[in-house]
């Protein structure tokens, strides 16, 4: 589905040029569950931003379904982000002015989905993450776990090909983190591709595939031989 070929990302800081990613090549197939791991400042977030075309690359190519999307115009990039990618952030990033339902409806409004249809779909998604009774609540009235569940529902609203989750449990207590992991793994089991930055090695071990990044370079790309969906379901 996604192919990165010798991708590099450098930040020009005047006298110094910082190479956040160096010649990184990577292929992501549909249905994968990938954990991106590495120390702080290794380039994990930069990779996530590039995958989500929130950031541009300075060298290499980015192919999405055989299309080179390296240098697309802004409007097209926005359309791809909206239709193909879903984002989940460590700090949830819900809009405090909107209710849970409206937060989930928001990406669908950019996709041009009619109000009634997006309301119905948002309600169904919130029901799926167990927030039926909280859908008209503002984020400020919800717990961290609930907010992240709303964020998951929002990320899934346009039925994306890829969920990009940047430390989705980072701001949650362990029990709530486990809850979020199970929800994400459940969606992956239903065919949703997930790329997740995992700071916690235990969470990384749960992914089907692990990418280890250090100093902007892909150190290891390994499959998890012990991954078992049954274990997750249990």
């Amino acid at each position, binding site marked *: 589905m996604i192919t990165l070929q010798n991708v590099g990302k450098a930040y020009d800081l005047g006298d110094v040029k910082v190479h956040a990613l160096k010649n990184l090549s990577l292929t992501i197939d549909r249905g994968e569950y990938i954990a991106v791991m590495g120390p702080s400042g290794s380039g994990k977030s930069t990779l996530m*931003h590039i995958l989500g075309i929130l*950031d541009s690359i300075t060298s290499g190519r980015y192919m999405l379904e055989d299309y080179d999307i390296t240098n697309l115009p*802004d409007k097209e990039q926005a359309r791809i*982000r909206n239709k193909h990618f879903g984002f989940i*952030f460590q700090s949830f990033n819900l*809009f405090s*002015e*909107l209710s849970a339902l409206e937060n989930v409806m*928001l990406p669908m409004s950019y996709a041009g989905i009619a109000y009634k249809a997006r309301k119905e779909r948002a309600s169904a998604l919130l029901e799926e993450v167990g927030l039926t009774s909280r859908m008209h609540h503002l984020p400020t009235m919800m717990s961290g776990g609930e907010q992240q569940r709303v964020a998951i529902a929002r990320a899934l609203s346009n039925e994306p090909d890829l969920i990009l989750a940047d430390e989705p449990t980072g701001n949650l207590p362990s029990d709530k983190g486990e809850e979020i992991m199970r929800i994400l793994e459940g969606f992956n089991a239903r065919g949703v591709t997930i790329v997740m930055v995992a700071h916690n090695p235990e969470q990384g071990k749960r992914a089907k595939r692990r990418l280890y990044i250090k100093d902007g370079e892909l150190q290891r790309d390994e499959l998890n031989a012990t991954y078992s969906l049954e274990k997750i379901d249990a």
Partner: protein
Amino acid sequence: MRDESGKIIVRRFWNRTLESLLLILAVAMGVGAAASGLSLIANIGSYSKETLASPAYREIIVSTQNNATDMTDPVILKPTQDNVVLTTKDLDAATMVPQVAHAYISNQTELRFINQAEAEREATMVRDGFGGPPPEEAATTGVPSSATAATATAGTAASAGTATAPTAATTEIEAVPTPTTSGTGTGTATASSAGTANAGAATGTRTQSARTSDRPPQERFGLSSAELEVAVADASIIIGQQENLAGYRVTPQFFDAWSMKAGSGSLFTDSDLSGTQSIVVLGSEAAMVLAGEGKDPASLVGKKILARQGYQTVVGILQSTGKAVYDGAYFTPYRSGATGFGGGPPMRSMNTQLRFSVADPKSLTETAAGLTEWFDSQYGEGRIVVSNPRAETERLMARNTGIGLLILFLSLAGLFIASVNVSNILMGRGLRMRKNVGILMALGASRAAIITLFAKEALAISAAGSLLGALLALPLSASMRNALGITGGSWWYLLVGIAAAWVPTIIFSLMPARQNSMIDPAQAMRVA
């Protein structure tokens, strides 16, 4: 609203009510002041143009020293050593100054109607002992007692500053032809001169001064109730239902100078100046009022108006001039006392102002110089005042324009400062939303969508501010116009001013929207 991103902006707006209201107020004050300033300068321009386009500002006024220094007072009251008297003969100066297109006299006067209400009023006053003539006088003249009331109708001080006469209107201190009373069959042909020297009754009140022994009695044309009934029944006699009608004693060239044309009948000619028949030309509005509702004003031509001054035969009706002061007035020939009536000797000394109009206002200075030279040669240097109303008015207009420009500058400066502040506050709001902009872009918002989002907020604020500014501008603009004596004007100027003031507000408000759309989503996400 069904757009979720729009809801974010609207709810943020209300969550920061004070800041939002301050933004609207800043726009309102800037727009209000600038719109007022713009409309003021436009009104000054149009008022100046309109005013100076009047024939009144294409003429030179010639008057005696006394008549010029304080034109609002009756000349007769001012003790003077000046024995210069200007008459219609002095209009001949026009032949010596080639730039003069028309030379004329125009003095205000008034026609007092005799009607049932007036007769009853006078009967009451006579019964109460006010205003009636001494019994012996009434007896000897055979005039009904009511006839000698209302002594102060003519010869009263004319007010200055009418819309068309920039200088004070002249007070007429001359004898006028004796109105005839033909056709009444009453034998009361004692109508006498109007407006004799009863200038002491400056406001038209009835005074006892008219009966002082050193002045002739104020004889007026009057009718008994029975006679009035006969007059009312006569279709050839016009009974005015109102108390009086303002008018002008003019020489024939007055009509040419003001481009007035007869709609029915005819205007005066030079021969009418020396005649004795009391004739009038009616303004279009005055004719309509006298004719009565639904009747053709042209039917008045040839009929006689029953008035204190005697029967006035209507010889013509003017086409509408568009100037209420003339359309609602009547015009009667100016007859100089110098010739006397019926070829007789001059009846009284008189004085007046002579008006010399030119075709091209640029030649006014030259014309004034030519007239000064002529009158100095006739009456001695400095005894006659030659004034150029246009020059004085142009100075006034220039002063108004200067004040208007200063106000405009200050108001535009206010608008600029307000717009910059609004822009800064909106920029600050945008920066506070930087993280949200990044999230919106991650969720699929394009830069155009972000611009649209912030632009909607900016337009809503500037529209609300401009609306409030328009409300502020209404009284402010009116107050500025009043302060500078600008009459008339158009609301269009204010509307255009509001629209023009809105433009920079929109531009300054939209700048932050564009700036916010340039936020790098990856950087914004790092903030997130």
